[in-house]
C-alpha cells in the first residue's frame, strides 16, 4: 500500500458514504467483515496494512483477505458502500501479498474479478481503471501520481 492507495481509499470512502474517513474505524469494519477469518489480525495489523507499514508474516493477511474477497464477491442486493471500499482495500492487500509471494493470482484472480463485477456500478470508470492498474502493475503505479 502506498500513499496514493490510501488517498484513493479515503476519497472513495468520502464519496460513497458521505462521511469522513477514519482509519481506525475502517480497520474495525474490515475486521468485522472478515469475521473469524480475520481473528489472527488485530486492528493495528489492518492499520499497518492500510498505511503500507506491515512487516509481519504475509501468509496471515493473504489468507484473511482472500476470504474477505470471497465474502465481497457474494452477490448481495443490499451491498453497503462500506463493503465496496472494503473490496478495494482487500484487492490492494491481496496484490501486495502476491508480490510478497504469499499467494498467487491463480488462486485470487476469480475472487477479485467476481468482486469487481459486484461493485462495478458504484465505481467511477477512472477509479476502476486506477484500481486495475494498481492491482496488476503495482511497481509501475508506485512512482506515478494519482490520476483522480
Amino acid at each position, binding site marked *: 500500500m502506498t500513499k496514493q492507495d490510501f488517498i484513493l481509499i479515503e476519497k472513495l470512502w468520502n464519496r460513497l458514504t458521505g462521511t469522513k474517513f477514519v482509519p481506525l474505524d475502517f480497520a474495525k469494519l474490515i475486521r468485522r467483515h472478515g*469475521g473469524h477469518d480475520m481473528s489472527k489480525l488485530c486492528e493495528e495489523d489492518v492499520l499497518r496494512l492500510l498505511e503500507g507499514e506491515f512487516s509481519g508474516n504475509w501468509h496471515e493477511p493473504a489468507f484473511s483477505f482472500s*476470504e474477505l474477497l470471497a*465474502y*465481497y464477491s457474494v452477490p448481495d442486493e443490499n451491498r453497503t458502500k462500506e463493503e465496496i471500499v472494503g473490496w478495494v482495500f482487500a484487492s490492494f492487500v491481496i496484490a501486495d501479498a502476491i508480490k510478497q509471494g504469499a499467494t498467487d493470482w491463480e488462486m485470487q484472480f*476469480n475472487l477479485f474479478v467476481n468482486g469487481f463485477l459486484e461493485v462495478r456500478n458504484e465505481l467511477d470508470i477512472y477509479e476502476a481503471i486506477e484500481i486495475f492498474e494498481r492491482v496488476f502493475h503495482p511497481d509501475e503505479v508506485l512512482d506515478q501520481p494519482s490520476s483522480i
Partner: protein
Amino acid sequence: MNGTLSASSFSCSARRQERRLESTVCARPDHPSRRAFRKTGCSKKRTHLPENTPLRAKSRTTTLGPFGEVIRATGPLAKVNPFRFSTIYQDDESDLLMYAHRPYSASQGRFLSREPLGEVGANLLFNIGFMDVFGEESRLNPYWIVDNDPVHHYDILGLQSVPVSLTEAMASGNVAQVESILAGMEEGDAGYAVAEAWLKKVAQCEAIWAAYKALGCKGCKGCTTSGQAAANAACLTAEIAGRAAFLKLKCDYCLAGSIAAGSAKQEKGHQTELANKTAALARCVAAAATLPSATPPPPPIVP
C-alpha cells in the same frame, strides 16, 4: 414472498422471541403491504381492506404472551404461516405447538406429555418431586415448559430448557463466557448438555479452520514438473476437504466473529472460496497429467 411468510423470516433466538413478545409484528414501512392496507408505520391501525384487493405481501398483527399463548391475532394473513411461537409449527385444528419431542399447548402453558427423560430414566427423581418429600413445590414438573420461566429460558426440541444468558454467550461465540457459565452449573442443569455440545463443536471447527489455514496452498501455474503439480493438488485436496467439513458443520454460525458480519453471507463466501479452490485443483490435476515428470536439462552451450 408474495402473500406468504417463509420459516426463515422468524428467528430462532430467544432475544427475537422476547422482542416478539414485547411488540406486535408489523409490515416494514417500505413494504408493498403498506400500500395495500394503507397501514401507517407500526401503529396497528388498518383501514378497510377493499374486496378483491390482491394480497401482495404479509400482513398480520400478532401478540403473544410469555408462554406462547395468543393474546391477539388480526389481519387476513395472521394464520398463513404455521411456524409461530418460538418458530415451532402450530397445528390450527388442535392449536398445539408441535415441538419435535412433545406437543405443547400454548393456551394451557404446558406440554401434553411428560418429560421423556422422566418416563425413561429419571422417573424416580420426578416422583420424589411430586410426592413433595422436601415439603415444597417440586421444580421438576415434567409438564412444564422451560422450567416455568419462559422469559429467561428457551426450548428448541421440547426436551430441555436453556438459560438465555447461556444462549447469548453462545450466539456471540464467546467461548470463555460459556465455559465460565458452565463452570457454575451442574451436570443435570438446564442447558448444560447443550452448552457442552456447543463447546465441543467450536473446538472441532477451530481445529478444522486452523488445519486448512496452515496449508497455504498455491496454484499450479508456475509448476514445471508433474511432481510439483501433484504436490500442489494434494495440498488443495486436503484444503478442500477441510473447507467442506467446515461448511458441513455450519461453523460460520458458531465461531466468534462470524455472527457479527452475517453468518449466511459468510457461509456463502466460504462456499465461493471452496468453489475457487476446487477449480484450482482441477487445473492442478490437468497440469500434473501434462507436465513432464522431471525438469528437462538445460540445452548444451554451443561454443
